[in-house]
């Protein structure tokens, strides 16, 4: 329709953006898996693919912001959309930071921690699933959208608790130097931050929904 052409385009670009984020996180999980399997060269190449995907997500973000700047949505809603898009983009940024840090610093992950980190990575990545659904349901259908936001939060908590357990194990049970512990601990923290970044998007969407309460 002529009247909502810009808004429809924003909606399409946002879906495109989310697809890029999903692809980026899939590559992120693959990269960490390869690294944990000891395939450092392949992890290096895969890390570069994460970087490329993050760049593609950036391109989508710019397209959305340009459309919003052209006047899509009333300003009252526009600021929320800008906030949401920026936060969605940060998910890919986080993923890129993790893989870059990993291949640059090249920490030696103890054997007994590899499976834990693999699980943490997976749990962080699957936090995205309810977010993808959230952008498919009508946002103002409160029961559906708030349930999905709650699901994001629950999954983020799972990732958080795994992070806590890994860090505790790392510093209490693993016998490596403190420097190595700090480097691995930092890696674990930034992996969990991917789930945090996803949760932040859910929270921002909740603000948008709450503002529509009459």
């Amino acid at each position: 329709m002529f009247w909502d052409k810009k808004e429809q385009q924003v909606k399409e670009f946002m879906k495109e953006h989310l697809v890029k984020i999903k692809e980026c996180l899939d590559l992120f999980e693959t990269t960490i898996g390869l690294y944990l399997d000891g395939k450092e060269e392949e992890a290096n190449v895969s890390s570069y693919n994460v970087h490329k995907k993050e760049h593609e997500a950036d391109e989508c973000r710019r397209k959305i912001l340009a459309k919003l700047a052209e006047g899509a949505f009333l300003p009252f809603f526009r600021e929320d959309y800008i906030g949401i898009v920026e936060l969605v983009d940060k998910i890919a940024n986080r993923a890129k930071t993790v893989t870059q840090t990993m291949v640059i610093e090249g920490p030696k992950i103890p054997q007994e921690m590899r499976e834990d980190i693999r699980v943490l990575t997976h749990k962080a990545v699957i936090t995205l699933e309810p977010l993808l659904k959230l952008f498919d349901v009508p946002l103002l259908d409160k029961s559906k959208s708030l349930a999905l936001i709650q699901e994001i939060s629950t999954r983020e908590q799972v990732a958080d608790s795994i992070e806590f357990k890994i860090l505790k194990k790392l510093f209490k049970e693993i016998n490596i130097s403190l420097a190595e512990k700090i480097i691995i601990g930092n890696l674990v923290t930034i992996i969990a931050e991917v789930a945090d970044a996803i949760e932040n998007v859910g929270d921002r969407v909740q603000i948008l929904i709450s503002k529509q309460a009459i």
Partner: protein
Amino acid sequence: MIALAKLLGGLFLGWGIGANNAANMFGTAVGTNSVKYKTAVILVAVFVLVGSLVEGYKLYDSYNFDRSGEFKVTFSQAAVCTFAAGVSIVFQTYLGIPTSTTQNAIGGVMGISILSMGMSGISWMKLLGWLFCWIILPVAAGVLSFAGMKGIGFIIQRTIKRMVLLNLVYKIGLIVCGCYGAYAMGANNVVVTTGPFYQAGLFGSQNHAHAVLAATLGGAAMALGALTYGKKVIMTVGKDITALDPFSALIAVLSHSLIVHFFTQLHVPVSSSQAIVGAVAGVGFVRGMNMVNARKLRAIFSAWFLSPVIAALLAMGIAYILGVR
């Protein structure tokens, strides 16, 4: 030609109403980029003119305070009425007293009527009736806003689930309500511009066709005001409205328009600005915000009582000095 020159005072009042009140209707729509400045002032101009043309005539025959029905205002008196209203507005603005064009114009008519017929010739019941309507106006606008927020809000929340659709409804709603507001203002306020001249017989005998002609001329002056100066005031005057969210603004403008239109049916000229203040207060009540400060309340009280009195005294003074009886 002299009669037409005297009409300029009334047309100037119309220009002022058009310029100042355009913001009430489209401040939000422009502030929220739903419509461009240029489009907004054109829409105000068109709908003010349409309102004046279609319903403006309704107030022309009752625009006097003559109890006997025999008093015939002259061109000079009509000119003094509008001139005094204009001077009164400038005078009060200079003194920092907030004022209303409509109520000053009516004060001018009252002053001339008192001077010509004496206190006993005035229909005080009618004047009190109008004063009562002015007092009711912001209250009714507030109540209507409150009901609109609850009722229309309930329907929107139950039926619209998609953001894009909600955005579209607000966008279109703001424009439609803005146009309706301009229409209602044109229909109600046009009488203060050419009403006294119609009463004086400038357009011929008092009948429907001549009332429509007078209203069209006054409406054109208001439209010109919106076109030439509306852009400058649309943001500053409309600031109070633009601070609202789109739904609240839409309801405020709709309530304003409905209530002003309602008083048009009662043949009572009312202040568009006071209607919008009342409507915004009603919205604020639902939102839990105090949208009306003491300054705005003082402005309304002053416009109810002070403006007509000052304008009436000025009209009497000017008529006395110029020897207009």
